[in-house]
């Protein structure tokens, strides 16, 4: 089974590499942020597979931490980088 787990992890990481295309294309900042979300989930899933393959509960902790804390980056993005447009100095440009 260990080979299967590693093989599936390899497929998952390959989808991450494919997701980079969206990162380079954009067009909005939200699209680019979504690519890091894709990275996050895929890495979490790969961690689950690796933790079973290597028999280490500590890798499950890595997965749990990555999953919970992914919200911090998104929250910082919507709070600071894309704040609510209620001020006069609003920039119309949505390009990231």
């Amino acid at each position, binding site marked *: *089974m260990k080979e*299967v*787990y590693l093989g*599936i992890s390899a*497929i*998952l990481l390959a*989808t*991450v590499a*494919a*997701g980079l*295309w*969206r990162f380079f294309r954009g067009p*909005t900042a*939200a*699209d680019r*942020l*979504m*690519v890091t*979300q*894709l990275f996050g*989930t*895929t890495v*979490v*899933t790969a961690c*689950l*597979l690796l933790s*079973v393959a290597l028999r280490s*509960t500590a890798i*499950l902790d890595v*997965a*749990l931490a990555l*999953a*919970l804390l*992914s*919200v911090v980056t*998104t*929250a910082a*993005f*919507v709070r600071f980088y*894309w704040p*609510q*447009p209620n001020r006069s100095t609003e920039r119309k440009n*949505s390009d990231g």
Partner: protein
Amino acid sequence: MADWISILLLLFAAFFFVGGTVGLLRFPDVYCRLHALTKADNIGMGFVVLALVIQADSWYWAVRLLATWTFVMAASATNAYLIARAAIRKEIPLWKPSKRE
């Protein structure tokens, strides 16, 4: 037997992850892409967790895996909501088939 079920579930999971990524690459606007992304999160990872739970040799592992999945779903729902709300506030237009050139 259990091994084959796990392998089948893992293949489903890989299908959903690949599908989510293809959706992220091909769908026309932010909201559709967000939809594709969260499918990969929730269903793809759900299948992986199921496959690993079948293989788990103790309750401890099974509970840990299922708990991780629960938190991933809570976090990814929050993420998707935040991004979608921010995009709506930024007035990023919805995709309309007729407008496509």
